[in-house]
């Protein structure tokens, strides 16, 4: 989460952000047959809040949707380069994903490296029948051949800036901000 001082401007307020989440849930519901065995997996620490919200919306029509969270720290490709170690969170996959249609949920899609790590980690939990990708914001700048199946909003981001998502559970309110980039790193 960025500090308030890093914020350049707010792109989407709470209402608009939640409307995006609602639309993503509707897109998923529309795209998949009603009897599809669906598992949502959110990438910590904001993707899992979005996944929980989408699962809540989907459950109104489809019954309970198993939802898990993935911490990709131990699957990053820059372990040898990071100075201070990232703190590791706990991964929690609720059930055997073998044969299920898994949808990875994240807040911002940028280089694609986080998703690459998530795909590798998921493979260690079983052979999903299909894996899809759902992101709140696609801000471009891919460094790997990875594209979303469901994207809430596609944004162009000026140099030196990043997109930062706030979620109710962690940040008090939902929103999407344009913030100053912290470093010249290749982001997540």
């Amino acid at each position: 989460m960025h500090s308030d001082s890093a914020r350049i401007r707010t792109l989407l307020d709470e209402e608009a952000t939640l409307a995006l989440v609602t639309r993503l849930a509707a897109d998923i519901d529309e795209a998949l047959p009603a009897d599809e065995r669906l598992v949502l997996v959110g990438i910590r620490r904001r993707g899992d809040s979005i996944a929980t919200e989408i699962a809540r919306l989907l459950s109104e029509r489809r019954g309970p949707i198993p939802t898990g969270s993935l911490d990709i720290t131990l699957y990053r490709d820059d372990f040898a380069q990071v100075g201070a170690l990232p703190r590791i969170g706990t991964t929690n996959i609720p059930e055997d994903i073998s044969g299920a249609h898994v949808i990875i949920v994240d807040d911002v899609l940028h280089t694609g490296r986080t998703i690459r790590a998530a795909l590798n980690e998921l493979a260690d939990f079983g052979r999903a029948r299909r894996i899809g990708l759902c992101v709140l914001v696609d801000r471009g700048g891919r460094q790997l051949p990875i594209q979303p199946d469901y994207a809430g909003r596609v944004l162009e981001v000026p140099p030196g800036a990043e997109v930062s998502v706030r979620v109710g559970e962690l940040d008090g309110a939902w929103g999407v901000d344009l913030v100053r980039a912290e470093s010249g790193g290749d982001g997540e």
Partner: protein
Amino acid sequence: MSGDGVGLGLGKDLVGLEGLERKQILGILDTAEPFKEISERHIKKVPVLRGQTIVNLFFEPSTRTRISFEFAEKRLSADTVNISSTGSSVQKGETLVDTARNLEAMRINMVVVRHRSSGAARFLADRIPSNVINAGDGQHEHPTQALLDLLTIRDRFGAIEGRRVCIVGDILHSRVARSNIWGLLTCGAEVAVCGPRTLIPAGIEELGVRVIQRIDEAIEWCDVLYVLRLQLERMKGGYVASLREYNRVFGVTSERLAHAGDDLIVLHPGPMNRGVEIDSDVADGERSVILPQVTNGVAVRMAVLYLLAGGQPELAETAKGGGE
């Protein structure tokens, strides 16, 4: 769990718990938490130490510590080599440093070392650029054992601070006791020791450790009873009259524990001498957390390996330049 960086400042090596700060010790325990889950997975492996080579250099026999380290290393995807004193050049009289330098020449990254001499781990750490983890050196320290004990106590009570821990047995010769005393005191526990007078180090009270004479009194006082293994060679040294006598005076039995508080737990670093320092019905009973200790051992060692491997490359550089 907050913040994105684990700036624990552990340095290149883990030689002992003496001198570590509370936030460093608790930081290692916090790092161990997510590693517990990996051992519960169907595929018990994450790629974080892929390509790192780790040598387990055991100059003293060990089964469970070596296996625990090896599981931890393999679950982090490191490549491992085990060297034990029997059947290697060590037996032919090669020195510790020569052995280590030869390993260095094969481009290794970390050494886990156990040695009969106190100070061996520090000696090695100061002379090679690889990370060194002490898996027990003489009567000095066994830091990962104490860390897994601390984690087990924290799991049960929620916190270490304020808990009363009594270590029972041969305190004088025990590296497990020494590491635990440092770790427990640093984390704010009250620590006592109980055992034959000949096996309690003189002046231990000056560390802030209380000495309890009778095992029954210790059981009444503490929340955590830490039963040490009685090294059978102590008989020869004349420190203890006989095993039967030891069991009669200091043995932890269910009759004695009948007077304990409801929450009291029993730890033992293994391997146990059943019927000597601990009776079977205690070891296998409800108060025993001996098997959770073993499970936590793997998670704690994964955390230490992770923290040192990703730690501070600049310190490793210094060590490379500063060798003798």
